[in-house]
C-alpha cells in the first residue's frame, strides 16, 4: 500500500545547524493495516507523517502510495490523492470562523458532497465523537479534548482510504481515547482503511496497531509486529515505551530492589509470550517442586494473539528444588531471567 524508500527531510537554516528531521527512512505499510509510529519528542514523527501527504516536500527519497509515486504527482493528482487521505493534526488546526458542524463539513464541501448528504454525514460523525449538543459552538468555546474530537471527525468525514493520525488521542481522557480507538478499529475493519498512528502512548499502539515502527532521531530503529516488539524490544528506546504500557515497574522498582529485600531464594523475571498453556505455570511449580512463590509485581495482559506480560516473583525453598524449578521453566516457552540476591 505505502512504500517509503530513503525518505529524508532536512530543515536548512542559515544561522543554525541544519536539522535532519527524517533521515533515510525505509518503511512499508500494508493495505488495511493499522500501523503505529512511536518515538520520543522531536524524533521526527510529525515530520514523517507530513511528508506522506506532501505537506512537507521531502529533501530526498520516494513515497509510493497505492501504486502512485506521491513525490512526482502533479498538483491536480496530488489534490485527488489527498482527498483520499484523512489527517488528524497534533494541533487540531480547526477554522475558528466555523462552528463544530461546519468544521466537520469542511472536507465534504471540498469534495463537493451535496448539502443534504453532508448534513447526515456530519451529524453521524458528531454523534460518533460525542459532541452532540455542541454542533453550533465555535472552537474557541471548546475544551482541548473537544477540539481534538472535532479534528478527528473532520478527518473521517471523507471516508478516506488512508488516515494519518498525529497524536490524535493525546489530548483525550481514557474513555474518549478508547471510544475513538474503537472507532478507528471499526472503520479499519469495515472499510479496509489503512491507518498510520503517530503517538507517544504505547497503549494506543498496543490496543489497535498490528505493526509498529519506533523512530529515533529521524530513523526507524525498530519495527515489526506489535507483539514481537512488545516481547522482544531490542532498542533501549523501545524498551522504554514497552515499559510504559506494562506499568513502570522496572523504573520504579527494578529487580535489584526485590533482590535486596529477600535474604534467601531467587527473584525471577518471568516473561509470558502469549500461550494460554503457560498460565498455570506458577501453580504447577508450587505443586511439583517444594518451593514457595510470591508474586512481587507484574502485568499480564491479553492481545489479539494471546496473553503476554511479565511477572516478578520471589521463589524460595531448598536450593536444589529451586534449581529444578528453574530447569522446568526453561523447558516452557516462558522466558526467564534470574537475579541472585546480591
Amino acid at each position, binding site marked *: 500500500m505505502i512504500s517509503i524508500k530513503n525518505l529524508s527531510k532536512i530543515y536548512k537554516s542559515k544561522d543554525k545547524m541544519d536539522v535532519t528531521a527524517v533521515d533515510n527512512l525505509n518503511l512499508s505499510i500494508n493495505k488495511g493495516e493499522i500501523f503505529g509510529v512511536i518515538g520520543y519528542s522531536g524524533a521526527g514523527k510529525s515530520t514523517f507523517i507530513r511528508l506522506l*501527504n506532501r*505537506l512537507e516536500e521531502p529533501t530526498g527519497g520516494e513515497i509510493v502510495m497505492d501504486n502512485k509515486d506521491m513525490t512526482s504527482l502533479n498538483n491536480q493528482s*496530488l*489534490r*485527488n*490523492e*489527498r*482527498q*483520499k*487521505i484523512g*489527517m488528524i*493534526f497534533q*494541533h487540531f*488546526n*480547526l*477554522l*475558528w*470562523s*466555523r462552528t463544530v458542524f461546519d468544521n466537520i463539513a*469542511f*472536507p465534504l*464541501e*471540498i*469534495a463537493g458532497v451535496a448539502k443534504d448528504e453532508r448534513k447526515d454525514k456530519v451529524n453521524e460523525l458528531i454523534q460518533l465523537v460525542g459532541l452532540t449538543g455542541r454542533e453550533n459552538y*465555535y*472552537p*474557541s468555546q471548546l475544551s482541548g479534548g473537544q477540539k481534538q474530537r472535532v479534528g478527528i471527525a473532520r478527518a473521517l468525514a*471523507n471516508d478516506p482510504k488512508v488516515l494519518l493520525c498525529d497524536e490524535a488521542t493525546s489530548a483525550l481522557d481514557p474513555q474518549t481515547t478508547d471510544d475513538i480507538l474503537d472507532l478507528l478499529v471499526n472503520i479499519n475493519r469495515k472499510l479496509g482503511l489503512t491507518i498510520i498512528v503517530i503517538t507517544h502512548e504505547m497503549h494506543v499502539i498496543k490496543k489497535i496497531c498490528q505493526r509498529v515502527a519506533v523512530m529515533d532521531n529521524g530513523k526507524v530503529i525498530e519495527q515489526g509486529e506489535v507483539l514481537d516488539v512488545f516481547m522482544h524490544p531490542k532498542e533501549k528506546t523501545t524498551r522504554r515505551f514497552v515499559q510504559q504500557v506494562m506499568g513502570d515497574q522496572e523504573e520504579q522498582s527494578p529487580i535489584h530492589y526485590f533482590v535486596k529485600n529477600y535474604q534467601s531464594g531467587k527473584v525471577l523475571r518471568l516473561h509470558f509470550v502469549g500461550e494460554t498453556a503457560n498460565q498455570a505455570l506458577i501453580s504447577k511449580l508450587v505443586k511439583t517442586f517444594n518451593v514457595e512463590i510470591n508474586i512481587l509485581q507484574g502485568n499480564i495482559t491479553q492481545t489479539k494473539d494471546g496473553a503476554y506480560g511479565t511477572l516478578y516473583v520471589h521463589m524460595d525453598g531448598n536450593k536444589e528444588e529451586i534449581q529444578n524449578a528453574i530447569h522446568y521453566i526453561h523447558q516452557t516457552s516462558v522466558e526467564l531471567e534470574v537475579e541472585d540476591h546480591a
Partner: protein
Amino acid sequence: MLRELFPNVVIEDLKVAANETFYMTGISVLGTLIIGILLGLMLFLTDRQGKTYKILNFITATIVNVFRAIPFIILILLLFPFTDWLMGTIRGPKAALPALIIGAAPFYARLVEIALKEVDKGVVEAARAMGAKTRHIIFKVLLPESMPALISGITVTAINLISYTAMAGAIGAGGLGDLAYRKGFQAWDFDVVFACTILIVIIVFIFQFIGDFLSKKIDKR
C-alpha cells in the same frame, strides 16, 4: 441659533454634498472591496518560491505600487478615456468613481495582504491536506479566517476614500470635502468648513461603527 452659528451655510448645499459623498464613497467602497481583495489575494498567493510565482508577484506588485504612486489628480486625468468609455461622462460624482476605486484598491490590496498573512498557517495546511483547490483555500479558509481584519481594513479604506472624494472635487464631483474647500476655505467662511467637517466626522463615525460592529461580531476567536 444654528443660523447664527452657521450664517453662511446653505442647508441645501450640505444635503447635496453629503449625498454626493455618500454616493461616491458607497460605490467606490464596493469596487475597492472587490478589486482590492483580488489584488491582495494575488499578492499573497504569488508570494512564494517558483519562477512563475515570482513573475506574477512582481507584476501584481508593480500594478499596485504604480497606481498608489500616481498623484490622485493625475490619476483622474490618466483615467479620462477609460472613465469616459465606462461611465459615459468625465464630470461629476459618477466620473470620480473609476479614479476613486483605482486609487483605493491597491491600497486596500495591501491591507488584504497583511490580513491574509495573519491567517494561521496550520489551517491552510489542513485544507491543503484535504485536497483543497486554491479556490477552496481562498473562499473557505483565507477569506473567512481573515474576515475581521478584512472588514477593519475596508473600514479604514472607506474613510480614506472620503478624503479622496475631496480631491475628486477637481472634476466637479462635489461632496462635503469639496464644499468645505470651495464655499468654506476659498470664501474664508469657516462656519461652512466647520459644518462640512462635522458632517464628515459623522459619516466617518458611522462607517467606523458599522465596521467595528461587523468585525467584532464575526470574530469567533
